[in-house]
């Protein structure tokens, strides 16, 4: 009786605190909103501490300190200390650029549990081009220091057409740097990545080759280094169970205090996301319109409504449905049963044609100038 399976009910377990949209890098696949430059009113130290306390009281235990680049917050150590006192497991999600030994030590003393850094590519020229900053050597130094000071380290690499041919080199670099975990994150096409999709999406053949290499390393490195492989959902036949179900597990707080059921949800029109400046975390989670909007199954249309798999994938990703069909209530078009599956095929075809075009097309880099130029006055 798939139709009678209940929707999971739960309190937030994961709090993603996007401390700032400021970042010295310009990655063209950044998941921050395109109009980030118009949301500059960051929460204060005291406001973040209140949010951490309120979410912890509801049972949140994993805390992601993210951004932008969280290292640009001068009160980062103070926030980490508060998180540790509350019993969070705190994850610093940084690019590693600007992470000095002094800062690593101060964060350790404050009680930080783990540091994730990213590289854009396993070689200097491409890395620096994609990051929009001369950052490669500095990130490698930061990685060595993180391990020297006893942190578990995740190396995150966003995978796309400009670096997917370097899968083997990426994994060899991860070994060299002593990463405990490698996250091979095939680009998800939201935010800036959606803008650059035709220039970033690899072909199916490229995916298959790269995935086989990653799987080989997974076996080889078993027990030494864990490899998380984030699948590229455009090449799947069923959508992902986005955020483990809307409003069941994850809570994201944007730099300006906007509370989001997923870190991309800011783009959904008319969702009316609440702000923690005006509401407690408990009110946000239990009573806000936005967090209840896609809970349960009543909002669904066909083919989701009568589908036995709705209890597994919850209709897929709302943001992807909106980006590809213009309707956030639609079935995620990644699903083979979606009447809009053609939109995904078109995107794949568009990217394939771009690979055959002569000359490399320019990427649109994530920076404040481009953000302001691309923001429409009515966007929020």
């Amino acid at each position, binding site marked *: 009786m798939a139709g009678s399976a209940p929707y999971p009910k739960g309190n937030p*377990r994961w709090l993603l605190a996007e401390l700032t949209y400021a970042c010295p890098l310009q990655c063209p696949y950044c998941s921050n909103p395109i109009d980030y430059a118009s949301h500059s009113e960051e929460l204060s130290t005291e406001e973040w501490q209140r949010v951490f306390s309120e979410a912890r009281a509801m*049972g949140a235990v994993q805390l992601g300190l993210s951004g932008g680049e969280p290292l640009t917050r001068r009160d980062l150590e103070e926030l980490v200390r508060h998180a540790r006192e509350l019993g969070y497991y705190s994850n610093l999600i940084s690019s590693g650029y600007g992470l000095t030994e002094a800062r690593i030590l101060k964060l350790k003393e404050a009680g930080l*549990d*783990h540091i994730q850094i990213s590289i854009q590519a396993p070689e200097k020229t491409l890395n620096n081009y994609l990051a929009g900053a001369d950052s490669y050597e500095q990130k490698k130094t930061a990685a060595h220091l993180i391990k020297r000071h006893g942190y578990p380290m995740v190396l995150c690499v966003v995978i796309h057409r400009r670096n997917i041919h370097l899968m083997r080199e990426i994994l060899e670099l991860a070994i060299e740097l002593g990463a*405990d975990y490698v996250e091979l994150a095939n680009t998800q096409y939201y935010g800036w990545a959606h803008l650059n999709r035709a220039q970033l999406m690899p072909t199916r053949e490229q995916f298959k080759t790269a995935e086989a290499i990653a799987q080989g390393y997974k076996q080889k490195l078993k027990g030494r280094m864990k490899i998380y492989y984030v699948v590229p959902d455009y090449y799947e036949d069923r959508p992902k169970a986005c955020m483990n179900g809307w409003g069941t597990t994850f809570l994201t707080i944007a730099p300006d205090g906007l509370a989001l059921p997923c870190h991309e949800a800011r783009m959904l029109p008319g969702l009316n996301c609440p702000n923690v400046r005006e509401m407690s975390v408990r009110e946000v989670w239990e009573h806000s319109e936005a967090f209840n909007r896609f809970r349960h199954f009543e909002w669904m249309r066909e083919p989701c409504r009568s589908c036995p798999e709705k209890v597994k994938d919850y209709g897929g990703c709302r943001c992807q449905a909106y980006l590809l069909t213009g309707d956030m209530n639609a079935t995620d078009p990644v699903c083979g049963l979606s009447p809009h599956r053609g939109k995904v095929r078109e995107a794949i075809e568009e990217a394939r044609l771009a690979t055959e075009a002569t000359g490399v097309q320019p990427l649109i880099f994530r920076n404040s100038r481009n953000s302001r130029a691309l923001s429409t006055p009515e966007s929020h």
Partner: protein
Amino acid sequence: MDPSFDSRLPLAFSPLHRLQWEEAQQKHVILYPEGMVELNLPAAEILKLCDGARTLDGIVEELERKFETSGLRDDILELVESALENGWIRTVSQG
């Protein structure tokens, strides 16, 4: 059942993981980068004894005394093997 590791060595909880009681869930959990495993009561009892001093036999002895029973070795070994494989604990070389 024979251990796949050198059971003369003490077992220690991994410095890259954290074991803690979660009031909201009323259970022990293991925390690690961006992940969490919820533990049942027996697993938590065993892992709490992986203190860098006790060996497998020491843990068996301690729990059999605590729960006034015997014959726990196979169940404990099974959990220890899987905890080693998951990297939650490790053997500590002496000297």
